[in-house]
């Protein structure tokens, strides 16, 4: 086992999950389950790619992903906050819509041709063990995660956000706008999810392909529950999933493990999360207003 490569691979695999999981936590703490996460990541990956392909700048692509994610969050807000639609249906609908729209646009723009390569973020500190990572990974670990933690814990917005997620009636009576606060949570969360998706196109691949997120959003949904809606455990769980995945990729090609059924090796990261959920997930306390649209009575 090559530990330096293992760490590098862990950081790459964890990054999309890290952003998506933090985004989902912020959203869910306000009382909204955003199952639009998979589609939001997908649209972020596509939006970032399109702008980078046309401008040659991954930074502008990243900005486009942020805007795409904010719009996707706004759409979820329209459905679940303003219209009060069932959150499961709205989320899955949003995911289908965003993936369909991205695939359809991709078909129209690139007509089923081969992969278009764009400029992409370079690895920082190449060749330096442990520090070799993409800018977005570094930002995620050193800036976004602490900021999100501080936001939820210590700011007025964070307090309002948790209040509308726990007890919207009380928050409303205290003069907090439940609608506006939930919109803000969805827009911030959406932007983070989209950045997680854009990491795949703008840093890992430098191109967009169909099925690019391949279920990573659904993994993030599980990690949020595992982390009990807390930021640092979420970071740890994303790293746990990633390290098991990176380790199985290395182990499966060693002579010792070469004959272990591949299906088992591939399932290991998912098994790790399921086992962790089974052990740590008992006695969960969901946000008080989880899944409940708020209407003044």
């Amino acid at each position, binding site marked *: 086992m090559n530990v330096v*490569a293992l760490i590098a691979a862990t950081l790459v695999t964890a990054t999309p999950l890290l952003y998506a999981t933090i985004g989902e936590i912020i959203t869910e703490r306000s009382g909204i389950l955003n199952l639009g996460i998979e589609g939001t990541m997908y649209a972020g990956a596509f939006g970032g790619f399109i702008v980078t392909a046309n401008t040659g700048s991954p930074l502008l692509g990243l900005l486009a992903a942020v805007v795409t994610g904010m719009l996707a969050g706004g759409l979820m807000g329209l459905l679940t906050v303003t219209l009060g639609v069932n959150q499961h249906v709205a989320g899955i609908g949003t995911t289908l819509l*965003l993936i369909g729209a991205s*695939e*359809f*646009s991709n078909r129209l723009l690139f007509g*089923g*041709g081969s992969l278009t390569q764009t400029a992409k973020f370079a690895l920082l500190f190449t060749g330096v063990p442990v520090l070799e990572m993409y800018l977005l990974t570094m930002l995620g670990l050193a800036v976004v995660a602490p900021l999100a933690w501080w936001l939820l814990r210590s700011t007025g917005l964070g307090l309002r956000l948790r209040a509308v997620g726990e007890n919207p009636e009380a928050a409303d009576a205290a003069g907090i706008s439940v609608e506006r606060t939930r919109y803000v949570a969805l827009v911030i969360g959406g932007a983070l999810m989209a950045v997680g998706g854009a990491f795949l196109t703008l840093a890992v*691949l430098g191109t967009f392909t169909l*099925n690019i997120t391949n279920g990573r959003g659904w993994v993030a949904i599980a990690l949020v529950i595992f982390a009990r809606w807390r930021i640092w455990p979420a970071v740890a769980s994303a790293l746990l999933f990633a390290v098991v995945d*990176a380790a199985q990729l290395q182990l499966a090609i060693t002579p010792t493990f070469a004959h272990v059924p591949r299906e088992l090796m591939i399932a290991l990261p998912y098994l790790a999360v399921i086992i962790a959920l089974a052990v740590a997930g008992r006695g969960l306390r969901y946000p008080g207003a989880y899944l409940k649209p708020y209407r003044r009575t």
Partner: protein
Amino acid sequence: MAAHVNPSRRIFIGAGLGGALLALTGCGGRTGDVPAGTAPAQGSTGGGAGSKLKVFGAYATPIEEPWDGVIHQALQKVADEGLITYTHSDNIGYDGGMERILRDVCNTDKPAIIFGDAFGNEDPTRAVAKDFPDVAFAFGSGEEEVAPNYSVFDNWIHDPAYLAGMLCGGMTKSNVLGVVGGLPVPEVNRIVNAFIKGAQEVNPKVSVKVTFINSWFDPAKAKQAALAQVAAGADVLFAERAGVIEAAKEKGLLSIGCMGDQKEQAPESVMASVTWNMEPTVRAVIEAVQSGTFSASNLKDHSFMKNGGSDLTEVNTAVAGGIPQDLVGRVAARKAEMKSGAFTTPVIETTPAGSVELS
């Protein structure tokens, strides 16, 4: 192709928003996508002599996915030449859509021939073929043909894969190669095993790391798998799946592309590509239907290299570090022997181990 589950409705649900996005970006585009049953009737009915044959393509995956893309491109080319009228429906998936669309097309559009991929849809395609004996079916399949009208084909590209193995075996300095494949089905195993045999012919000391990512299309995952192989010492990579060339590029290593010619992606890294060409198969079926001699058969021979159905692209000696002429010559000689029938590439369909050491 069973793992690539991608419901077709996504594309249609997204159509409205996609159109709006397109209008905003002001870019032109192409829509080759004609939903089943809504295609306007063109020309006369399918089998009419003297008129263009009507051909329909039914694809479980999006045509951007290389396997179905190869079938689509061959049919599109023949259609562009004016030989046939061609419509298709893609991204049909594996949840019952295939049978519905095929029945719909057979009833309303009455094509003479239907091409498609049956992996993951073996039973539905056969059931429809049985009910419409006048329509010629030619499907990519891992199973047998069914008389009178259901022919099967598959990508038999083990010949160029063997040649690619020779190139990689000759170029490795660490004596470790990496292969990242989709799923360990016979078709993919055949390619990977032929690659390994080719590498061992040139370099008896070589060991090969084999990873299957359990998906037909997850380039980010394929790239991570390739990087893990590099960490285990691999210094030449065979990109059976998309994403691997990106890893080779990043690490400054040599690679082999697959399905299409992938030199463009990294001219300094891609030594050659193992390609599949469905044109001979498509033309054979069309000619048989036109002459009234179509019957159910296994069309695999048309995918063999000696019949133009597969190939190793011209060796790109301009890669970083170059490729020695004697190795290029050795590969060319073996290729000539394959074409003349003097050499037969071994067909091994068992799943290779994760690490194939010297025997």
